[in-house]
Every structure is written in structure tokens, then in C-alpha cells.
């Protein structure tokens, strides 16, 4: 498991030449090799990482500032365009794709001295909750190899929990950072929609997709968020960030109003998880937080809304994979139509096809109003309920998932059952809210995630709360 120091202290030591970036990269690559059996990593970025490490060490020895993340190795989910390796998004159709430019998130991390050492496994195109939809392999859970790591950022979460690197980055469309963080026992942060640029991230569902970090502490995810956050000319959906940094955290719990989401504590929640979450909440109460029950009656509908909105957006975003401009192209096609059909049918995996088909259906004339418009209207209802709740409380709290990591293969034959694992995470994506999953303890040797949510753009405050809660859970 992870034995890295806090990111801030690693970077301090690299800047003062106490630690060498080259050694850190070696350590990360060594750990990746040693733990190859977990199938967390699709490819390493060895050559480029070593080159960058050398540059950073030279900078430090010349007393130049090597950045706030100087020499810190990290792993990017393989749906981030990055130099030095292929970007596959976990899919056969993008196998061999060499990014012509890098994701803004990676550019910003590199500008502060961080070094991308590998690309992590994911469900192809981030469609899934377990990495079982990866076209290449299934990532194993660091706590039990017969179980899933969660998804879709399962490779990123497993990598961080196994100590391959101090942090990883992922994307969260319906829970893809928080769910694997919960299953693997690390911290996963989904910021407010638009806080971090998505330029250079393979698009899944554009009204929901966000970029965020995974690490072993709130301090670490906050520092990485601070480096990545802010408007970007290359992503017109980015929002203005807070003037103050995200990594200077403290929040007095006394007097904070925290709402317990009633709908998350029904019979579908594993009773052991319920007990554990309740014991964490008792700690908050003892520390002075005002806990009240909050009801969001439309929240149980969030998953149904999600499985209309998401496939609709997926079907249009995956339209670009036509075999002509990039990605797999069927070599024996005689006509353009045949090239489209064969390239897509051979290149896409089952889940991508399933979502494209559902998307085509809910967007087709005759069904558009009944499905798509209806879902977007129920989405409004849910957003209104969140707004109302945040009129009464400062934060919301609940579990990240109704279960711990399930067995590999357990849900693969029933897509709907697999979708239900996201039942507690999709709500905030539909409303664009920030949310974090913290390790909340263990049930039968498996990690359980505690989820905290805040109003849009309250990222700084939420990270502050998370840090305080993290301290309470540990003691």
C-alpha cells in the first residue's frame, strides 16, 4: 500500500534537491512493474518521464523553481491525451492513437513539475462502474484480487491505493472518480462542473463530464485540484475559479449544518455500511456539526435521468469515431458507408454499442420528447431540490455507494444491475455539484466511502470540510 509522503513535502524536497525526481520516477515505475498483476496500468510513459525528471533535477540544482509539484510522479486515466504514449480510452477503436496535443489538465500539472509516468485502465470510453468494460483487461481491487476496483477510473484508484504514485487523475461523469475511490480506499474528488478544463479528455457525456484527482489524503487532492483548476480558452464550459487557493484548508466544524440524505439510508443500503457511516456521522456531531435529516424526493430518479441523458450525449460524442480521421479503420471497405459500419462495429465494445443504441433511440423523432426532454425536465426538478436543501444546510452527507467492491463477473451479464452501482453518485453530476469520497472505514476487509457534497462553486469550503472530517475519522 502507499508509502509516499504528502505531495507538498515531496515537491519541497525535490526543489531543495533533497530528493531527486529521477529517483521518484524510478520508484513509481518499479512499483508499477511489481504490481502489474492488478492490471491497473495500460501503458507506461517511461522515456518521456525519465527525460522530464532529469530536467527537473537540473532546474533544482541550478536553484530555479521547479514548481509546486516538482518531481511528483502521477498516473493519468487513459482518456487524457498525453505525450509519450498511446491514448486508448480503454478501447480497441483508439488503439495506436498518438495524441497530437496534451490535455490542459496534464499541461497544467507538467507546468508545475509533475511527471506523468503511466496511463491507467478504465472501462472503454469511461462507460462502466468496474473496468470490466475495458477492451483490454479488468483492474483488480487492491484489497481483494477477486473483486473489482470500481470504475470507470478503476485503474487510477487502484494505482493510488497500491502506492504506484502519490496521485492520479480521472474523470467523473456519473461517479467514475468517487465510486472506485470508495471501493479502493482512497480519496476521490469530483469538482464543480467546469472548474477544470476538459480539453484533451476523450468526451463521454459533455453536460456531465468533469476532471478530478485521486490521492491518499484531502490535502493532496486539494493541491492537485488547485494546480488544474481555472478557465481555459480551449474549453468554453470552464468557470472562473476562486481567487484563494484550494490547498490552504481549514474549516471549523462547529455550527456547520450538514444534511443527512434520507433517501440514501433506505433498505438497499448494506446494514454494515449504514452502521459505519452512522458512526462517522456521530463523530461529526460530537465535533459540533449540526446534523439534520434532509429529503430530496427526486434523488431516487437520478439514475433513470442519467441513463437517458448520458447515452444521448454518448451517442453524439461517439459519432466522431468514423474510421476516417483517427482510430481503427476497416482496411477492406469498398465504400464509405461500409467503412463507417465496419470500423465502428469492429472497433467499439459491447457497452459502447449499447449506449449508442439507447442514445439513438431516446433522441429519435417521436421519442425525443417522451424520453430526452422528460429526463432533462426531471433533472430541473432534482436541481431545484438540491437548491432548496442547500438553503437549509451547508453540506450534504451520505455513503458513496450502497455496497463494497463486488466480485469480478458478478454484474457483467446484467447491464441494468451494473448501472445501479452508481445510484448514489449520479445525482451531483446532473446538478453540477462538487462531491468527495473519503475512506470511511472497512466492512469485512473492504473499504467504504463516505460522500460529502456542497453547492456549486463551494469547492474550497467542501475540501475544508473534507479535511476536518478526514481527521475525525482517523482518530
Amino acid at each position, binding site marked *: 500500500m502507499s508509502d509516499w509522503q504528502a505531495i507538498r513535502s515531496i515537491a519541497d524536497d525535490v526543489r531543495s534537491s533533497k530528493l531527486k525526481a529521477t529517483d521518484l520516477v524510478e520508484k513509481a515505475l518499479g512499483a508499477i512493474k511489481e504490481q502489474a498483476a492488478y492490471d491497473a496500468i495500460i501503458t507506461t510513459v517511461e522515456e518521456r518521464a525519465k527525460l522530464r525528471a532529469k530536467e527537473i533535477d537540473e532546474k533544482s540544482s541550478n536553484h530555479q523553481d521547479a514548481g509546486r509539484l516538482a518531481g511528483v510522479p502521477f498516473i493519468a486515466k487513459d482518456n487524457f491525451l498525453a505525450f509519450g504514449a498511446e491514448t486508448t480510452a480503454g478501447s480497441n477503436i483508439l488503439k495506436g492513437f498518438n495524441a497530437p496535443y496534451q490535455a490542459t489538465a496534464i499541461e497544467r500539472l507538467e507546468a508545475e513539475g509533475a511527471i506523468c509516468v503511466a496511463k491507467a485502465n478504465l472501462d472503454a470510453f469511461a462507460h462502466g462502474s468496474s473496468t470490466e468494460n475495458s477492451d483490454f483487461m479488468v483492474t483488480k481491487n487492491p484489497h481483494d484480487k477477486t473483486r473489482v476496483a470500481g470504475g470507470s477510473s478503476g485503474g487510477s484508484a487502484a494505482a493510488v491505493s497500491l502506492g504506484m504514485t502519490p496521485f492520479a487523475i480521472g474523470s467523473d461523469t456519473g461517479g467514475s472518480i468517487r465510486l472506485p475511490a470508495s471501493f479502493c480506499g482512497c480519496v476521490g474528488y469530483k469538482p464543480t462542473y467546469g472548474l477544470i478544463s476538459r480539453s484533451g479528455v476523450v468526451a463521454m457525456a459533455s453536460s456531465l463530464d468533469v476532471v478530478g484527482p485521486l490521492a491518499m489524503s484531502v490535502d493532496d487532492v486539494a493541491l492537485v485540484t488547485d494546480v488544474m483548476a481555472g478557465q481555459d480558452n480551449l474549453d468554453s464550459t470552464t468557470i472562473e475559479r476562486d481567487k484563494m487557493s484550494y490547498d490552504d484548508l481549514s474549516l471549523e466544524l462547529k455550527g456547520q449544518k450538514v444534511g443527512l440524505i434520507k433517501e440514501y439510508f433506505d433498505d438497499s443500503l448494506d446494514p454494515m455500511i449504514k452502521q459505519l457511516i452512522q458512526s462517522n456521522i456521530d463523530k461529526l456531531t460530537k465535533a459540533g456539526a449540526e446534523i439534520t435529516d434532509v429529503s430530496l424526493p427526486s434523488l431516487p430518479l437520478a439514475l433513470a435521468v442519467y441513463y437517458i441523458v448520458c447515452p444521448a450525449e454518448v451517442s453524439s460524442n461517439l459519432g466522431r469515431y468514423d474510421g476516417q480521421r483517427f482510430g481503427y479503420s476497416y482496411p477492406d471497405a469498398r465504400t464509405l458507408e461500409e467503412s463507417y459500419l465496419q470500423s465502428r462495429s469492429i472497433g467499439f465494445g459491447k457497452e459502447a454499442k449499447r449506449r449508442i*443504441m439507447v442514445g439513438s433511440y431516446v433522441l429519435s423523432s417521436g421519442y425525443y420528447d417522451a424520453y430526452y426532454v422528460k429526463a432533462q425536465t426531471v433533472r430541473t426538478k432534482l436541481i431545484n431540490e438540491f437548491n432548496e436543501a442547500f438553503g437549509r444546510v451547508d453540506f450534504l452527507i451520505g455513503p458513496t455507494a450502497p455496497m463494497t467492491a463486488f466480485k469480478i463477473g458478478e454484474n457483467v451479464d446484467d447491464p441494468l444491475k451494473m448501472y445501479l452501482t452508481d445510484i448514489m453518485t449520479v445525482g451531483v453530476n446532473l446538478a453540477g455539484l462538487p462531491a468527495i469520497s473519503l475512506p470511511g472505514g472497512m466492512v469485512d476487509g473492504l473499504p467504504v466511502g463516505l460522500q460529502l457534497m456542497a453547492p456549486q462553486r463551494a469547492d474550497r469550503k467542501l475540501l475544508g470540510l473534507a479535511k476536518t472530517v478526514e481527521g475525525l475519522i482517523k482518530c
Partner: protein
Amino acid sequence: MAKLTREDILKLAQLSKLSLTESEITEFTTDINNILNYVEQLQKVDTKGLVPTSQVTGLVNSTRPDKIIDYGYSPADLLKNVPNVQEQQIKVKRILE
């Protein structure tokens, strides 16, 4: 209740530019019907007076100066993933039989 037939699935595949195998047709007919039955719970929700949400941050018309920004990439960089290039153009198969 949605009940998509084999023909409906084939039509959807055609709209999606996918050509399905026999086993995919069978499997997707069941799966997609299950998914649609699940999402149909929304039909009963009272949404009178509400407008659909298509974006969540309220941003309006993000503009920037109409100026070329040089990111330093050559056309060759940007074309390097294209399966079939001729004279800096993307070459595709014929459209008409």
C-alpha cells in the same frame, strides 16, 4: 411500456452506423428493453411548469477575441493519426457504388 422488436433494434443499429452480429441483436433486444423499462418511471413524474435543463453552470456565450493562437502544431502533427492521407487531405472511400 417499451417493447422494442428485432426490427426496431436493426433500425437503431442502422441509425447508429453499427452492424450487429446475431448474438448482439438478441442480447441488445433484451438489454435495451430492460433499460427503457427502468427509465420509464420518469413518465409518471409531475414536471408541470418546469423547463428542461441542458447545462448547469448558467454560463452564457463564452467568447474570446477572434485571434489565431499558435499552439505550435504543424498540419503533419494533426494529421498523424489519419488512416489515409494524400497531399495533406483526408482520403475516404467512394460514396456511390
